């Protein structure tokens, strides 16, 4: 089914149509939110809030951008708000998932710490590009910045991650 048809059904308030959108986007959304927020619980909360927000506002969606751009824009804003709240409450909990207590979890934690150290725009650009699987042009639309700025942010994010993770790089883990 075409995405436009699904959206039209969503605009009539049909919850079943939202499930189709959810099935299409839940993976990149969850992964992006997870990398931005650092834990599964918050990531799921962010995706749930994003879908609720889409449900409330989808009648006003006028196809000025791709639906995925619209959806990711909402998710990124929610993640930014949630991280701000987390920082305010000084409850930064990194990688608390039981699922991560596996042989590789130390590296996973280190990657997450390194990501959290990145300036917010660099992290958003890099995560949308890698985990969110968005094209650079779409990232520019999602974050309301220029394409050049997206390229620069991704490049500098990679440079910084390379340096933060140098210990693991040398060990050959990364």
């Amino acid at each position, binding site marked *: 089914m075409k995405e436009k048809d699904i959206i039209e059904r969503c605009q009539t308030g049909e919850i079943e149509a939202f499930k189709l959108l959810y099935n299409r986007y839940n993976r990149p959304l969850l992964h992006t939110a997870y990398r931005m927020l650092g834990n599964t619980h918050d990531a799921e909360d962010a995706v749930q809030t994003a*879908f609720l927000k889409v449900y409330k506002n989808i009648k006003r969606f006028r196809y000025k951008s791709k639906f995925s751009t619209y959806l990711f824009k909402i998710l990124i804003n929610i993640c930014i708000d949630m991280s701000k709240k987390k920082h305010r409450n000084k409850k930064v909990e990194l990688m608390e998932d039981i699922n991560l207590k596996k042989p590789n979890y130390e590296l996973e934690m280190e990657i997450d710490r390194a990501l959290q150290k990145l300036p917010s725009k660099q992290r958003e650009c*890099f995560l949308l590009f*890698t985990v969110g699987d968005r094209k650079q042009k779409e990232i520019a639309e999602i974050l309301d910045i220029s394409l050049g700025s997206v390229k620069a942010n991704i490049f500098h994010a990679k440079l910084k991650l390379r340096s933060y993770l140098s210990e693991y790089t040398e060990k050959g883990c990364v």
Partner: protein
Amino acid sequence: MSCSIYEKFIFGQVTEKDFKQHIKHCKECQKMIEHDDQIESRVRDIKTVFHPDRLWNNIESSLITEKEKIRNNSNVYRMTFKIMRTAAVLIIVLLSGVIIKNYFILQSPLLSDTRIKQYQNKEKAIIENIKDLEDNVDFSLNEGNIDQQLRYKEYLNTVNSQIKDYQQVLDENPANTHIRDYLIRALKDKKQVLKEFVRVQRNS
């Protein structure tokens, strides 16, 4: 990092073709690409297990709650709208009443000089008739139906005081149409009562 070709390629300063040629022999760029690919794939490779079905159940129930809320809100909105519409109609009716009262009833239209003269002539003619009738009336009430004559006399006193009031107002504003009309009506009343008075006295 001494070689900057990779950076230049990313920012579009070096073409893809040139860059491909370059990395064939540049170990540094090869290493950077390799590292970047590894970092990207490591960031992509999330070990956490998500439960999309469970999450959908949560989302679905929150959407259903929201749908109910929207429906209830729209009912409340519809009711409020109906009440407000009725209230608005009532307010408009009341306001129209006030406007009509203030502008069309209380504010008397003013007469032109010619119309004032016409009214004055009419009043003069009636007053002359009244004078003639008054000459024929015996106000001492010595004969005939005394009760009826007393009633006429009493009524004449009332009309006289009305006429006096109207004339006082007209002295200040001779162009007031309504008071002119009331005066004419009062004078006609007086004339009629006097006629009756004369008739009753003649019969007796």
